[in-house]
């Protein structure tokens, strides 16, 4: 059996992702969140895991350096990667939102300045609504930008919206909802079909099913 390489996103959903894998009988005995190691093998040596930054997962998978990846849909949309997005792991659920200081609806802006960790998602959204847009890329605490008048609005992901409200911002629009996905390199799917399908079935099997 061929070995599969899995790129797993560090951060908020890593623990839950590993729990799902564990339920599907995929265990990484050496793994510890504080470990400095970057590569881990599972008990059966069939899966090699790369523990990488969330924004880099799509890069590893698209280039074929990893066959599969587990990462949030926010990173998938932002990267625009040409990959298969085959399973919704139903964890890390949140949504893209547009939020601003004033409750002024976005369609009333003649042009807009947006701060975001997701410049591609942000500019695609305003392009779609025919609003001229200037994007400012920030790597954290984007809520700050409207407060200091660096930007009119922010495009960010929220789970509950508490941080947004605590900083006195109003949610103006809700965009795509987001959750953690299992992604697959297209060439790996063709050359390692059996292994990958087996893995997907195993994981799909332990996911909660919609009430039918």
């Amino acid at each position, binding site marked *: 059996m061929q070995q599969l390489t899995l790129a797993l996103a560090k951060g908020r959903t890593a623990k839950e992702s590993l729990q799902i894998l564990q339920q599907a009988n995929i265990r990484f005995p050496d793994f510890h969140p504080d470990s400095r190691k970057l590569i881990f093998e599972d008990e059966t040596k069939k899966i090699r895991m790369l523990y990488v930054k969330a924004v880099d997962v799509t890069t590893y998978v*698209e280039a074929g350096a990893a066959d599969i990846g587990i990462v949030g849909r926010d990173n998938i949309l932002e990267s625009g990667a040409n990959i298969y997005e*085959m399973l919704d792991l139903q964890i890390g659920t949140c949504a893209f939102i547009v939020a601003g200081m004033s409750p002024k609806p976005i369609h009333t802006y003649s042009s807009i300045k947006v701060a975001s960790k997701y410049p591609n998602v942000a500019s695609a959204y305003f392009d779609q609504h025919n609003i001229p847009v200037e994007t400012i890329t920030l790597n954290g605490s984007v809520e700050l930008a409207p407060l200091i008048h660096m930007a009119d609005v922010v495009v960010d992901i929220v789970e509950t919206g508490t941080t947004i409200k605590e900083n006195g911002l109003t949610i103006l629009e809700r965009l795509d909802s987001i959750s953690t996905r299992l992604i697959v390199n297209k060439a790996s799917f*063709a050359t390692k079909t059996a292994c990958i399908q087996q893995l997907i079935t195993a994981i799909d099997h332990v996911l909660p099913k919609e009430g039918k």
Partner: protein
Amino acid sequence: MHLQENVKTNELVKMIDHGGNILALRSDATIPITKRLLQESHELTNERRYFYVLDVFRYTKDSTRPQENTQAGVECFGANGFETDTEVIALSMHTLQDLQCASFTLEVGHAGFFQRCMEALDLDVEQQCTFKQLLQTKNIGELKHYITQTEGTDDWKQLIESIPLLYGNPPEIIQLVRNKIDDPIIHKQMDHLEKIYQLLSAYHLAEHMVIDLSLMNHMDYYSDIIFQGFIHNVGKPVLMGGRYNELTKQFGTLMPAIGFACDIDAIVASKEDKESSVPSLDVCIVQNDVCTNESLSLSTFLRESGWKTRVIQKKHINIPAQIICHITRNEDQITYHLTTHKKTFNCTRKNEVEAYVQSLLSKET
């Protein structure tokens, strides 16, 4: 100019000449070849077969892909039908075999299939984009959700939500589709794919074909079958092709045409490290416990006859060699099993092995 319909203009590499005109570097080889041919003659009295090795230039979002890309491809004009389709597919597979790609898979789909599905759902242009996006990413969950919101009868909806899963062994997938929908156009497409598969068996290549009905090409001009080839350890297709009868119509004449192009840079990159580190071998003998003496004795015999020979343990099987030799013992009877990437040969004596190696490789030496 009709190029806009096929090539995304923001992907073109543009320049301005001294007269202020905007020029674009060639972004694809098929379009200029087709255009040139149709300028020369509007009716072909016989088939035209061309090959090319060209650089194409394209901006892409994919940072792993260079803007300049060397493509080698073929185009066949004037012939329609599954025989030509199969011949071109077989040629693409032979190309990968000649390059000694250990294992390869050719995904075959049909551009008319999802067109027909989109008609059945009555999608507008914007919806078509979303739909294609969901298919291309095999996003089963969201596709299912999306389908429920569209117009269309239940049998179509059931077929369409299963498209990402319509991947794999051709006879199975074809039968699955036939059972799911009773539509003459779809059935005709399935018949066509089936004939290709059957004919590929005659080429001894059917095992490399899988059906992928969510397969779509970046270039929009394909009208019927489309295919992509993948080799081990390369993260993107190394060849792409298909039938593009519609493209010729855009240049004023309907002329059947099919072709494919190989991504030379990707193929070369996949071969580089292996070839620089390991000299190519004539014969590689795979050793096992029961035939240690015979393996070593044969290797000495072949080396004395001037063949580059190596004996390996079973676990490293990816040694590039012209001929792979396995030895088996049945009581006192030793059999030598010789395999090349095209044929196999069995014999029982060392000098028969040598004669066979001689007959196969003497041309090169």
